[in-house]
């Protein structure tokens, strides 16, 4: 009996030992996945604090995953990433732009396509379509991060001035143009945006007009030239014509191409201008620049409806998902899963408090209670605006090659405002450039 017991004990201890070794080996295999990552900001940037807080929470929930961070200022980040890509030393986690800004990585096979992972885990179900839309002509999705849209068309309204002049926020673009004379007669500038850096008019006004006149489907065709669509079509020419009409009506002043964003914002904040056209990011500037009492009567609106447009309402704005995370295409399965955990953690609504704390207002398919967390009147209006936008329209410089947008469209828009080019000529010039050079057409 004793012999049998000791034999049993020996067997049991052997089994325990084997189990311990097996568990230890498994634990060893799982432990200490270390990822590398570089972020496009420095330690003085608010994004740094947001990232640290997110990582602390992530690491507490996933102690087996360690991320080693490196930080570089915006331009230095892009320069270093190019050098790292060439030398085959890219970090595991990449900070990527949804459009062309990191095209040197996404367009050359350095970033992993996330579509399989997104569908596998059903991430797309909790997000609005704009976050998982194609980021390349062939449908790939390379980056996904905090579900926050940078809406590029927002009309900031000084309602107090409007009331004083006896006007209402217009329902249509024609009504908007019709107000210019009255506003000027009252001694105010109608609408300012400051286009000296040349991207503003395109990003904050032309894009939404092209999207509404043509629909995102037409734009997708124009990008690749599918079904004979192109930038000589009515939506693009029509949008340019509308801008010319806005100049002729006095709503857009010929001085805008020589005015900086800061000067335009200053004109609005100091009550010299009734409308300020910009992106949703201006909320941050306005929050700090506006006196407390003025926050109550500054409204955040989308561009009034364009009569006869394919998207006739005003519930659309141009925009792009915020910068987010992707991963190097060279990662093995283990590192891929670890990096994907980090990306999902940033997306998870349970971490929304960190995003809100640092001024980001994520939007999901369902209400996750963000509005209840806000106290600042402008933040409330900003979130209400973001949630009210049913159609997120493409931003030209996000989808088309920078060279054509900057050298032809942005420069051409400034000439259009100054009256030295016609809408038709500018559209023809751009279509010729896209047909000959744009990577979307070449990838068709």
């Amino acid at each position, binding site marked *: 009996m004793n012999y049998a017991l000791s034999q049993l004990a020996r067997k049991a201890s052997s089994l325990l030992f084997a189990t311990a070794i097996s568990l230890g080996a498994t634990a060893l295999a799982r432990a200490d996945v270390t990822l590398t990552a570089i972020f496009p900001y420095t330690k003085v940037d608010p994004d740094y604090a947001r990232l640290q807080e997110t990582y602390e929470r992530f690491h507490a929930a996933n102690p087996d995953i360690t991320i080693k961070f490196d930080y570089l200022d915006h*331009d230095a980040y892009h320069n270093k990433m*190019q050098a790292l*890509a*060439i030398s085959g030393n890219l970090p595991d986690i990449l900070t990527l732009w949804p459009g062309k800004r990191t*095209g*040197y*990585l996404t367009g*050359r096979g350095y970033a992993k396509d996330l579509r399989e992972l997104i569908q596998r885990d059903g991430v797309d179900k909790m997000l609005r379509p704009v976050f998982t839309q194609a980021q390349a002509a062939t449908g790939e999705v390379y980056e996904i991060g905090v579900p926050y849209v940078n809406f590029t068309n927002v009309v900031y309204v000084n309602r107090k001035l409007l009331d004083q002049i006896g006007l209402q926020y217009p329902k249509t673009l024609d009504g908007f143009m019709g107000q210019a004379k009255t506003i*000027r007669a009252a*001694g105010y*500038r109608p609408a300012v945006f400051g*286009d*000296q*850096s*040349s991207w503003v008019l395109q990003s904050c006004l032309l894009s939404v007009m092209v999207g509404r006149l043509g629909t995102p489907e037409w734009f997708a065709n124009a990008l690749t030239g599918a079904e004979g669509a192109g930038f000589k079509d009515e939506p693009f020419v029509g949008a340019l014509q509308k801008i010319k009409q806005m100049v002729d009506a006095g709503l857009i*002043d*010929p*001085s805008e*191409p*020589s*005015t*900086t964003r800061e*000067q335009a914002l200053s*004109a609005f904040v100091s009550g010299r201008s009734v409308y300020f056209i910009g992106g949703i990011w201006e909320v941050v500037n306005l929050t700090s620049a506006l006196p407390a009492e003025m926050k109550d009567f500054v409204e955040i609106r989308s561009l009034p409806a364009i009569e006869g447009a394919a998207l006739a309402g005003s519930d659309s704005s141009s925009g792009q998902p915020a910068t987010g995370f992707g991963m190097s295409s060279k990662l093995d399965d283990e590192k891929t899963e670890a990096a994907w955990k980090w990306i999902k953690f940033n997306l998870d609504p349970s971490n929304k408090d960190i995003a809100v704390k640092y001024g980001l207002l994520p939007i999901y398919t369902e209400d996750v209670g963000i509005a209840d967390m806000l106290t600042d009147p402008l933040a409330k209006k900003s979130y209400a605006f973001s949630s009210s936008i049913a159609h997120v329209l493409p931003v030209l410089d996000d989808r088309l*090659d*920078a*060279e054509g947008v*900057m*050298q032809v469209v942005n*420069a*051409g828009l*400034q*000439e259009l*405002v*100054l009256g*030295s080019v016609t809408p038709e000529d500018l559209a023809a010039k751009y279509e010729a450039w896209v047909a000959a050079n744009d990577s979307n057409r070449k990838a068709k």
Partner: protein
Amino acid sequence: MGSETRSDRFSYALLTTPALLIYGLVIVVPVVYSLVLSFTDWAGVGIPNFIGFTNYVVMFSDPIFWWGLRNNGLVVLVSLIGQIPLGFFLAYVIHRRLVRHSGFFEAVIFFPALLSPVVVALLFGVVFAPTGLVSQIIGRAIGDPMFSLTVFNSKNTAILPYLIVLVWMYTGIYFIIFLANLQKTSPEMLEAAVLDGANEWNILKSLILPQQIPVFLTSAIYAVAGSLKSFEILWIMTNGGPSYYSNVLGLYMIQNTFSFYKYGFGSAISVVLILLSVFLILILSAIAARFTRRYEQGAH
């Protein structure tokens, strides 16, 4: 004698080799590298393809290049016929004590050259903005609060504010260079000239100017090289706009290289800038040599 020469040569080589190596690494290698890159389509990543003279053909058929070249020409002109003569004139006035409180004027004239280009660009960006200081002064004078400056609205005048800033900022540099050289002029010689009945114009024309020819040449070379490569003030002041009305080649190069990832094309622009610089400096050297010869012949 022979061994001394060898020793001298060895000493020269020993002393100059480090400098030559550094110069070669810092200047010659990048220039040659740029030249090689200019014949490729390198995008900053990937392997560059040799594309012959395509970058140069595209560049010479691009109106933005020619507009930048025109503006660069104006910048060079303003430097050569604006900053340098004005710098010399002011130095001469101060040196000859033709005004009182010369110390104060020295400080005032040189002060802009001490400022950071970024600060200067921001300052003048506000001064010349459509709703900026100049506009507000004019607006108040004519009783139109909506008045805005239209200097940037025209292709021909958009570069003007930048040229004004260049004269304001860099004249002080040439002023100091000329002042330092004028102080080398022998006071006895000037005194003798005055005793011989020379008036201020005679002193300037026959004594001072001929002695300053090498200084003019050095200043002109400095001005040409600086004018062709400078863009930072313009970048902040106007971003080369509106449209490309105030663009210069330096900015055109930066935009193509770093915004459009056309490193090969950007290199081709830099090669053109180097060639242009060398060409202008050779012309200036030839002109200066001719003046010097004429002066020496006249002196004999």
